[in-house]
């Protein structure tokens, strides 16, 4: 299989992957280490009082994951407007006048 990934592809996939892992796994580990509530939702008692709040605002974590999706979306749009690898190969094979 021919590797047709470019530096742009690698940056986009690397950045997106890093953001996914940061927002979900790394910050999830920090939540665990910080103790209750262990998840990005406040913990309440039977009376409805908040007894533990998350270490990291879920808005930040979801925002990082959405940023990861946006990186993929922008990369997809970039791929749409740039010539495909096969297009370039086709052009290279064209005979000169």
């Amino acid at each position, binding site marked *: 299989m021919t590797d047709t990934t470019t530096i742009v592809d690698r940056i986009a996939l690397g950045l997106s992957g890093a953001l996914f892992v940061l927002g979900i796994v790394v*910050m999830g580990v920090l939540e665990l280490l910080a103790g209750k509530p262990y998840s*990005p939702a406040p913990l309440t008692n039977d009376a409805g009082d908040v007894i533990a709040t998350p270490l990291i605002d879920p808005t930040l974590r*979801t925002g990082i*994951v*959405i940023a990861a999706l946006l990186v993929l979306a922008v990369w997809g749009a970039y791929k*749409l407007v740039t010539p*495909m690898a096969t*297009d370039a190969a086709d052009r290279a094979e064209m005979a000169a006048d």
Partner: protein
Amino acid sequence: MATNTANPLATNFEVELDGPLTSYWLALLRVITGWWFFHAGVTKLIEDGLAYSYGPMYMQEMTGTALGPIPVWMGNNLAWLIAPGVPLFETLIGLALMAGLLTRLASIGGVIFMTLFWIGNAGFGHGLVNSDLMGLLLFMTVLVLGAGRYYGLDAIVEQTKLVKRHPKLRYILG
């Protein structure tokens, strides 16, 4: 990909997209995900037709999310589009996935829907990875792997002269 002759399971369980088990599973994943959205959409159509008023209301209540004021603005100003759009697009996305036609385009729609549900429902009591995010990941998987090529109509459409002349159409097919 090199064949691992030392592993007797390699022929069936290797992640090769033309392998029989991979094709079968991708097609099934696509159809079940499609049915999920089709059912969600068509039941709204049966109950409310193209006047699904809960759609705009849901977005108006999406305050304090990572998308800032965008969902609330949409709920206030695009109700004319959201009320018919939610049941209609859910149904069409589901049909497209089940048929395997315009699979990637439909999956992009599914990702947008699931992103809004994920942050709108904000059901994070058991962690950030909940059923809404898993649904989002299902659509991403169908999109990335071009699951419409496996027992789907996109496999046929991609062989047409039109797609061969304009190979970038594969970005929305597959």
